[in-house]
């Protein structure tokens, strides 16, 4: 009798195992690629403007900072660190614009100073002409 009961239990156990539902497969998380084209292009445009006014020399520190951010953005992009890349590109745009402004300001100062020098030189030439007319003095040092 015991043997019969053990047999039935064994059959039931095997049957239950055979009908157990397969565990459901969970989908792998999908990789989201951010489109950085616009950010990259904005940075390139801002850099071009800064280059046009020669900010690399005319606003050395600001330009160097902007360039570093731009390079870091490129590295982050190549490593598919999209968020960092985007933030760096945005920061680079701001930095290049700043470099442009500083360079433009420095350039204007230089042009103003040159204009003053030109005026001073014109004054000398005018006074030398007048001295020549009046006295035959040409203004050279003895």
């Amino acid at each position, binding site marked *: 009798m015991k043997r019969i009961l053990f047999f039935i239990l064994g059959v039931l156990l095997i049957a239950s195992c055979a009908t157990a539902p397969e565990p459901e497969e969970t989908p792998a998380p999908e990789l989201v690629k951010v489109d950085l084209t616009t950010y990259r292009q904005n940075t390139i445009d801002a850099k071009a403007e800064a280059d046009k006014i020669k900010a690399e020399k005319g606003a050395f520190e600001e330009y160097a900072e902007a360039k570093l951010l731009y390079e870091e953005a490129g590295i982050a992009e190549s490593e598919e660190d999209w968020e960092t890349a985007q933030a760096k590109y945005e920061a680079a745009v701001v930095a290049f614009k700043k470099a442009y402004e500083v360079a433009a300001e420095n350039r204007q100062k230089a042009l103003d100073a040159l204009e003053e*020098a030109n005026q001073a030189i014109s004054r000398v030439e005018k006074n030398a002409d007048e001295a020549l007319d009046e006295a035959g003095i040409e203004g*050279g040092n003895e």
Partner: protein
Amino acid sequence: MKKILCILLILMITPLLFAQNLQDNPDYRESLRYKRLSEESIEDGEYVKAVEYAELSKEYAEKSDAYIAKRLAQYRANQLLKRAEGLKGQVERSGRAKQYPEDYTTAAALIETSRTLYLNEQYEKSSESSRSAIAIMEEFEPARTTGSGLPAFYIVRDMPGEEDCFWRIAGYDFIYGDYGGWYPIYQANKAKLSQPDNPDIIYSGMVMEIPEREGETRSGVWVDGEIRATAP
């Protein structure tokens, strides 16, 4: 022969006046050099350097200008001093020094002061002193002259052995008393010359205009030691 000597003298004096032109002035040259550097720096984007160069350019231009102003002040002081000395000579020769002894002494002292100031390179003060002396002597009753006692015109003379030329005319004490003052006379009369670019060729009988110098008033025509209202 005399004319040749006169021309030679002009040729000797002219280089002294013109040897040093503005391009020879080191300060002026520096101002141009720094200006160029400033322009190049702007072109290269080196704006901060460009400002420095432009400021140096201005600084040197101002030095150059100060030098020219000083030379002009020196020239004016020299002319006024010579004018005062010339007038003093005229006053002495005409006997007016004895006629106005006190004023004459004052004028003579002012001329001496002017000379000292001139030698000490105080040209503005020297000029002032000369002007004061001139003003005193011009108050003297003119002797055979009109107005200020200074002719506005001079008729080129034909003097055997002593031919007139711009250099000699400027040197007469009744003109400027300064041979170096020939250039303004030449400039004023250039158009009348047969060869305007050649100051060496003038003819007797030509009526030369004598430009007024600072502090001078001229009128009439100098003829044989006196100033007439009109040319003969």
